[in-house]
């Protein structure tokens, strides 16, 4: 099977006066297969979120290559990225922060289709249907972010990400700011959607238990480098690298 997302030697470095460059992401390579859930774990500052931002081109890579369905997107600019955003979408860590406080959830959810020129009635019907799939009543389209709870907002964010039928969903700590019961519901929703729509997930997380339960494969990131990768059970129960051992010990 061909990978939907392939990252080769991806790097992001910052130059520092008088010192060697600092690598936030240091020559990272991995591939995400169609319909696969790939977990990325690591402590704060290990470069997890930077990878998410690099793949979505919110920041520019300083080296390496990002391919989505065989297309090299590393050097695409502005307008050229728009079709790519139809394939990759992201769910952010802070549900409320990812919606414009002055616009309704519906505005935010429909924005991608609005930019594609889909008529209002059509895109709203789709948003309503997706919102219901994500477990929220259609009236939530009219609500403002401050009028809904964190969990509800995150469901809306998932609906928004699915509006343009992406192949890849990047979940950047998507459940970290939610309490455990809501977290469980969101995970169940994500699992259900993944099977129904054959999505590939890049699941960025620092909760090892969640990764073990949820992911097909896992990458352990430390100091911007991949220190270990494999099946979640192998990595978590039988860690080989020094850092993965420490990470696991810290949790269990």
């Amino acid at each position: 099977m061909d990978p939907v997302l392939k990252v080769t030697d991806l790097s992001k470095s910052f130059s520092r006066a008088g010192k060697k460059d600092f690598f936030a992401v240091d020559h990272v390579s991995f591939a995400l297969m169609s319909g696969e859930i790939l977990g990325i774990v690591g402590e704060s500052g290990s470069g997890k979120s930077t990878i998410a931002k690099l793949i979505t081109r919110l920041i520019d890579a300083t080296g390496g290559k990002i391919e989505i369905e065989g297309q090299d997107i590393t050097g695409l600019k502005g307008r050229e990225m728009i079709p790519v955003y139809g394939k990759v979408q992201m769910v952010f860590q802070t549900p409320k922060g990812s919606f414009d406080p002055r616009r309704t959830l519906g505005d935010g959810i429909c924005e991608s289709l609005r930019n594609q020129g889909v008529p209002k009635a059509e895109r709203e019907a789709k948003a309503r249907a997706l919102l219901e799939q994500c477990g929220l009543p259609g009236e939530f389209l009219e609500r403002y972010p401050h009028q809904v709870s964190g969990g509800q907002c995150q469901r809306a964010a998932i609906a928004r990400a699915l509006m343009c039928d992406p192949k890849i969903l990047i979940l950047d700590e998507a459940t970290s700011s939610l309490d455990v019961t809501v977290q469980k519901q969101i995970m169940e929703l994500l699992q259900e959607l993944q099977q129904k729509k054959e999505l590939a997930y890049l699941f960025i997380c620092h909760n090892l238990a969640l990764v073990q339960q949820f992911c097909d494969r896992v990458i352990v990131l430390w100091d911007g480098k991949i220190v270990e990768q494999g099946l979640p059970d192998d990595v978590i129960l039988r860690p080989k690298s020094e850092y993965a051992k420490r990470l696991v010990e810290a949790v269990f």
Partner: protein
Amino acid sequence: MNRPVTVRVQKVKKNRIRTRLFFFLFLAVILVLVSFFADQIVPYDPYAQDLGLSRQPPSPAHFMGTDQYGRDVFSRVVVGAKASVFSTLVLVCVTSVFGTVTGTLCGYFGREIDSVVMRISDVCLAFPGLVFALAIAALLGGGMSNAVIALAVISWPKYARVARGQTLALKNSDFVAAAKLAGDNSAQMILRHILPNILGPILVTAMLDIGTMMMELAGLSFLGLGAQPPVAEWGNMMSGGRSMLQTYPWLVLSPGVAIFLTVVTFNLLGDTVRDYMDPKNSGS
């Protein structure tokens, strides 16, 4: 037990602010209306001279008296509102729009434009405001429109700074990233997401600026760099009567009180708008 009380206190506070807002808004609207319909309101022709009636003290016929050429001071104060209030509003509108647009663009696009424009604004801010305005007004020659231009040059950086700072803060927020992922181009991003979210602080700055600008405009006129005689404008009316302050105080006091009341009204309106916009005071 604690929460409902706080909520109620907040609500009362919010209502009080709203009452205050409507009160000052009402006063401000009256002032603006007076300045718009000044020509219809005045009891006498503000420019008609009658030397036989010169320097009359306040009386039922001329309740702010007459000036050295026998012109009715009240009529001149009312017509002066046209110059003062109207010019100030134009000035504040133009500078706030220009400053906001440049600041937002600088904050959003960054790089070279940002450095260049911000250095220009540094230059404008480096000189003491009114002195710089004096220099520009003197360079351009007298006249109300030149005074407005001079003050515009010194006051736009303030808005550019506020807009730029707010834009920079928003640029890194998740909802802007999400909008980018939704395929927004720069224009859509700025118009839909950035501007609506930074408008609050800009509006407050503009409201608080009205009073200051009015004073500075009157100041320039007082010094002879704004409205030129015989045009009735509060600043140059005060300047014209200055030498007679001891003997015919109404010549200076009438326009002075007009400036005072107008500036106080707009400043308090600005304060109230700021309180009203402050999320800490929102009772919902």
